[in-house]
């Protein structure tokens, strides 16, 4: 999956000349945390909720101490200029790892210098929900099976024999085995579990659900 497919295409942006007050308002109104800073469509920086908060705290502390005020009233004065970006043709995994390792909340998406979108944690969550089809009709069942494609094939055949509609399927390692998370859309889950157990698979009781 590519970043371009999952990013938000019309991000809310500011210019370096915008006031900090306006930036704060935008974050509040749109319930967002990241504002790419743009001049004539080109990305020149980014300002986040944390930047604004830190600046405000520093300013308050300086006033109490009676020190000379740190200069700056505009976005351009406090924005981060050295921005980590991704391109629409980077994969979602790249973005995921960047967000995770560098502890970012969002990444501007650029083609060359031109801003074309933004990818935040919220977009990743949406991708997760859509991929697993959590919002759709269906129930998840969990099946433990040996780590072999033969076993996976047998499980699929068992499900196929029941003519089930499979909504999503994830297979991941689990204590030396595979745990398959299958989302199926049938009301009669109990008989599906029974059939899987009869076919020799281990289907955990709900008390021991893996998560």
């Amino acid at each position, binding site marked *: 999956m590519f970043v371009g497919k999952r990013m938000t295409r019309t991000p809310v942006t500011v210019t370096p000349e915008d006031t900090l007050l306006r930036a704060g308002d935008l974050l509040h109104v749109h319930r967002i945390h990241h504002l790419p800073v743009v001049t004539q469509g080109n990305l020149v920086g980014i300002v986040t909720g944390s930047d604004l908060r830190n600046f405000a705290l520093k300013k308050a502390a300086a006033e109490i101490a009676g020190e000379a005020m740190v200069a700056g009233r505009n976005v351009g004065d406090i924005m981060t200029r050295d921005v980590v970006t991704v391109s629409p043709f980077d994969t979602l995994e790249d973005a995921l790892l960047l967000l995770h390792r560098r502890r970012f909340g969002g990444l501007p998406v650029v083609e060359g210098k031109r801003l074309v979108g933004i990818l935040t944690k919220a977009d990743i969550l949406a991708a997760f929900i859509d991929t697993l089809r959590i919002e759709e009709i*269906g129930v998840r069942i969990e099946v433990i099976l040996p780590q072999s494609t033969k076993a996976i094939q047998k499980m699929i055949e068992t499900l196929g024999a029941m003519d089930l509609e499979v909504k999503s399927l994830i297979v991941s390692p689990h204590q030396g085995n595979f745990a398959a998370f299958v989302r199926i*859309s049938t009301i009669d889950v109990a008989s599906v579990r029974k059939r899987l157990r009869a076919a020799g698979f281990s289907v955990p009781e709900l008390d021991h659900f893996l998560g």
Partner: protein
Amino acid sequence: MPGRKPQPPIEGICYGTPLPRDAILRGLEKLIGERNLFGAELNPSILKKEGSEKKFLVSKVPSRRRLLSRWESIFRNLIVPDDLFGLLSARTQEFDHRESLFLFGKDRVIYDTQIHHGGEAVGELTLYFFSLYDRRFGLRGYLRGKRLRIVYIEHVRVREQSSGYASSLFRRYESLFRNLGFNEFRLKASLSVGKYYWAKEGFDCLDRSELRRMRDRLRALVRERGIPVREIEIDRLNHAYDFALFRRDAKIPAYRNREGYYSLFRDEEFREEFHFPLGKAFLLSSSPWDGHKVIYTNTPRKTGIVTSGDYLGHRTRTGHVESPRRLHTIWKEIGKNGLHESLISLEPYMPDREFLERIHEPQYLDRFRAAVQEGKRTFSTRDCSIGPGSFEVALLAAGGVMAGVDAVMNGRVDNIFCAVRPPGHHAGKATAMGFCFLNNVAVGAVYARAAYGAERIFILDWDVHHGNGTQEIFEEDPLTYFCSLHEHPSFSFPGTGRRMDRGKGEGYGFTLNIPLKPHTGDDEFLETFDREVIPEIESFRPDLILVSAGFDAHRDDPIADLDLTVRSFVHMTRRICEVADRFCGGRIVSVLEGGYNGASLAASAVAHLMTLQGRREPCSSESG
């Protein structure tokens, strides 16, 4: 039985346990001594209407042994003969009974009297008391000597200005006979005004096919006279009472003869013209019908049941859990518990497409019908197995809830259980899933609003699965509160119904989802129910409560993972009856949804019914 102390009286002088034989005998002797008790048989010539002979051939008193055995078989020795005689002939409103007699026939006890008012004879009354075996009791009932106890109103005639007395007399009699364990009044509505009067008093046709014939005749009449009545209005006449109150706005002429009989056509004999409401005129001029009225044995509330053999016509594939057998087991359990003696049984009718289309998209209904007509085996998903009759039966299920709404909203019953299938709460505006095709409860809700003006409707869904269809239909409607208790969506079909879903737009705050972890038991479940659901109903103040009553949260149910027992269903029913009493005159329409283990389904449904009747002991929140 010597040494056994009679239990406290139920009311007045009837007892909860049989009285000793010598007390009965003393009462009989007293009546014989006062020349109020004889042996008698019906005069056969009276049946042939030959002249004005005596009604009975009075003979000498039968042997004491016979008298005692007859008294025991009919009245179970719950009352002493002279006490009953006194209660039957008690003077009220200046009316008294004179020349009253107890006559002992072969299989019955007859009470015959003349009604006087201010020293003037104003009418007569003859009652038969007898018992008979009813097929519905089954073989076991037969072997145990279970019998239906019947009060047959053989004859009652009072002057027209005293008809108020007759009504009050029968109200008094009804509670008296209830305490004596009688099950039914029966009569033949053949006299002129009687045909209308008894229907208005709640008597229904003993033979259901008679009702069908009445509908046909009314339909013909309406067509012939060109009276603007829609087909559906006649279809939903389900009880003689409905006929009596039918279309009071449309008056038609009726003609009376000298003897007080009515006809809809004027001729030599029927000359005197009157204008009556359509239903009244129709009944007055109808042919005689056999009527019966259930005496509500020990049930504080009048509870109805809507069900029909036609529901078996939705045949799912072999091995499918939503099978016709589900209804069979419920019916059997109802019979075993003798509930049909006290339930008012109603039949569903085919609903108007108009009401269905308020819920479902017309194209969806067409697609469903087409799938059935083309002989497809499933519709939309594999769960939704269909057969040749499925479309009509699904409509009839929605019509069953409409019949239930009719009965509750026009006051014929206090509350009602609609044992319908297929279930409905997963069906959305244009989706079938989870064994559901049409959303029966939703159709009932819009019908109650459109036809009876019920504004605020609370839908409680305690099926183990989330009622996603009902939620989808009403999530933007602030006047229809949808509350569902179900197994948590991460573990159970349909995977919706999370706590954060509270409705949309104007309807925000009028949807409440209460997901429960797998293996939740009675205590935790009921604690949640009392804490979260009841206050919501109280603050919503509904005009009508609808229940999507699935019984698949029972621990024996194969399809889901909650560990409830019958206790939970009894408790919840009890609680909603209480709030319904406070806010909406006790009006509850409960609709069967899921429940797939025969034994637990039947036991839970019957417990639910008995609690609706107010029979089960009131429960405290600790004991359930």
